[in-house]
């Protein structure tokens, strides 16, 4: 067994429910490598919703709350709010995060609360059998767009940036080294971090959208289509060629929510001690 698996997985929960060739196993490994390097396993508190990627954390030996479809982010906020020293990480998928849970992404980013949202983007609703997602490419034929997808894609990175996230990256399962680095940066980043991972789903996306269920083909597709470009002004041109920009897009500082809460509580109590009206 892989030494990281030996050290960090709940062996009694194995085997994974992931399909053969799924990117989620690679993501588990990359994440555990980052956690191992940081030595932060005991500080982790994880949340997840529903979907394939929501199971990623369940196999790890961590405290994890895996709840309703789309609602992993508010649960993460509840955990962070009750003990800010926790390192709260949420694994979510493109449907979970951008469709049913989109509202929560906006408001967590706006608050700049120190949680890490890892969005595993396989461009489809995979667990339910291959329906269109907000991340599905225009024109794609899925089980619910049998005549081709006529809806524009929603870009989670642009949304996170616009909503006020202070760290935004997108990498892929074909970029494991920068991905591990981005995991580490995100976990240690003081504020809301959004890390998107373009990942392969040979069983749904591969077979029905890209034309092959072979894991090698799908990983190769990702390699060919993900182009490193960290300057947002260049994104439209890349996307016009059917490619996906990846890289570390944003890292900035803004007051973190729980620090602001603690500052406010101190101030209010001092005012009260001085005889304020509350």
């Amino acid at each position, binding site marked *: 067994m892989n030494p990281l698996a030996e050290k960090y997985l*709940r062996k*009694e*929960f194995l085997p994974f*429910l992931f399909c053969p060739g799924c990117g989620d196993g690679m993501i588990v490994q990359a994440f555990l490598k980052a956690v191992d390097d940081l030595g932060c396993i*005991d*500080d982790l*508190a994880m*949340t997840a919703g529903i979907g394939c990627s929501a199971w990623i954390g*369940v196999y790890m*030996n*961590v*405290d*994890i*709350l*895996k*709840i*309703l479809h789309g*609602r992993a*982010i*508010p*649960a*993460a*906020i*509840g*955990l962070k*709010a*009750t*003990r800010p020293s*926790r390192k709260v990480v949420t694994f979510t998928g493109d449907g979970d995060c951008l469709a049913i849970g989109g*509202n*929560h992404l*906006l*408001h967590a980013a706006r608050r700049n609360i120190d949680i890490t949202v890892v969005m595993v983007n396989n461009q489809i609703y995979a667990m339910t059998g291959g329906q269109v997602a907000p991340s599905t490419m225009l024109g794609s034929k899925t089980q619910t767009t049998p005549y081709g997808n006529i809806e524009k894609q929603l870009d989670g990175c642009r949304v996170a940036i616009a909503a006020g996230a202070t760290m935004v990256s997108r990498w892929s399962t074909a970029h494991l080294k920068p991905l591990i680095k981005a995991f580490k940066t995100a976990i240690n980043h003081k504020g809301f971090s959004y890390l998107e991972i373009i990942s392969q789903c040979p069983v749904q996306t591969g077979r029905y959208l890209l034309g092959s269920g072979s894991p090698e083909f799908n990983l190769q597709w990702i390699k060919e289509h993900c182009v490193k470009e960290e300057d947002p002004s260049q994104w439209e041109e890349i996307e016009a060629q059917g490619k996906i920009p990846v890289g570390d897009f944003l890292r900035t500082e803004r007051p973190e929510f729980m620090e602001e*809460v603690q500052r*406010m*509580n101190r101030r*209010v*109590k001092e005012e*009260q001690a001085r005889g304020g009206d*509350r």
Partner: protein
Amino acid sequence: MKKGRIKVMMGNEACGEAALLAGCRFYGGYPITPATEILEFMSRRLPLVDGLCLQMEDEIAALVAVVGASWGGTKAMTATSGPGFCLMQEAIGMAVAVEAPCVIINVMRGGPASGQSTSTAQGDFYQARYGSNGDYSLIVLCPSTAQEMFDHTIKAFNLSERFRIPVIILSDEVVGHIREKVFLPDADQLTLVERKAPTVPREEFIPFQPDTDGVPFMPAFNTGYKCPVISQAKSQSGNRGNAREAAENIRRIVSKIEDHMDEFAEVQVYGDEKAETAFVTFGSVCRAARSAVDMGRENGLALRSVEVKTVWPFPDDLVRRALAGAGRVVVAEMNLGMMQREIERVVRRPEIRIELFSKIGGLYPQPQEFLRFLEE
């Protein structure tokens, strides 16, 4: 006699005071009439005790954040009204499934849908019990005074910690907004219940293995137990369960409550306990019924009012006992006969007439109307 102080306050504020005294340190909310005062109260007061009141982006997020806070090791609460309560239903089932102690206040208003935001109603009687999917159970308390808003909130926190469940307070606009005297006991006069934390070493800890009372031990996150908590049907280990394990778990989360109803079920009788005619009421309607009983007594008419304080699980035995000897039973409620169904189920005697005195559309029943109903 307990030590404390008396204050005139709104029912919703009494609820907030009680939550603070019960140890609530996280509140997730969303503004909605007629429950908003609880959110406003908590946003003023929680910072003073190092707590956090978060106005979330919707009621779904509010309750989910409360469940997160609960597993984070904190007592947590939310409050809402009908439309928000609808949004919370999925998360109520989730809180049941992940066995997260928390308190949910529903200050009922008129429905369906947006209904009547500023008027009272009792149309969420069944939703409070059956609103989420699947088989489950929970406890629902119905206050009728500002004092009971206080007392029931303390009780709700204690029961939620005792059974590891969401406890719902089904209040209504009248009780939420009424201003009246409330006795606030000093903190040291209260008996508070806390969830049981595991004491075994981590290697021996089985996350959803019940104690003898059916309730598993609950470690807060980041205390070393590394708990897998999923809302799927699960085995005691916390992993996805097979059919047998799923069935066992469902039976346990129901029986851990319903086998212990003697610990919390409450039915009061006001007036003449032997009166031929009995009203059955819950929530704010208890108030008008009491006045009707008093007015009846003045006119030489013996009446009793059976007040159901814990409406779910429905206290069949206590209600049967409270109605013993009554020949005419009038269920008075602000809906089209929801509790009436429960009474018909509980009192299956052909010689007993069960009638419905119903007020809807935001009108609160007047005491005289009870007496007029009896005459008609």
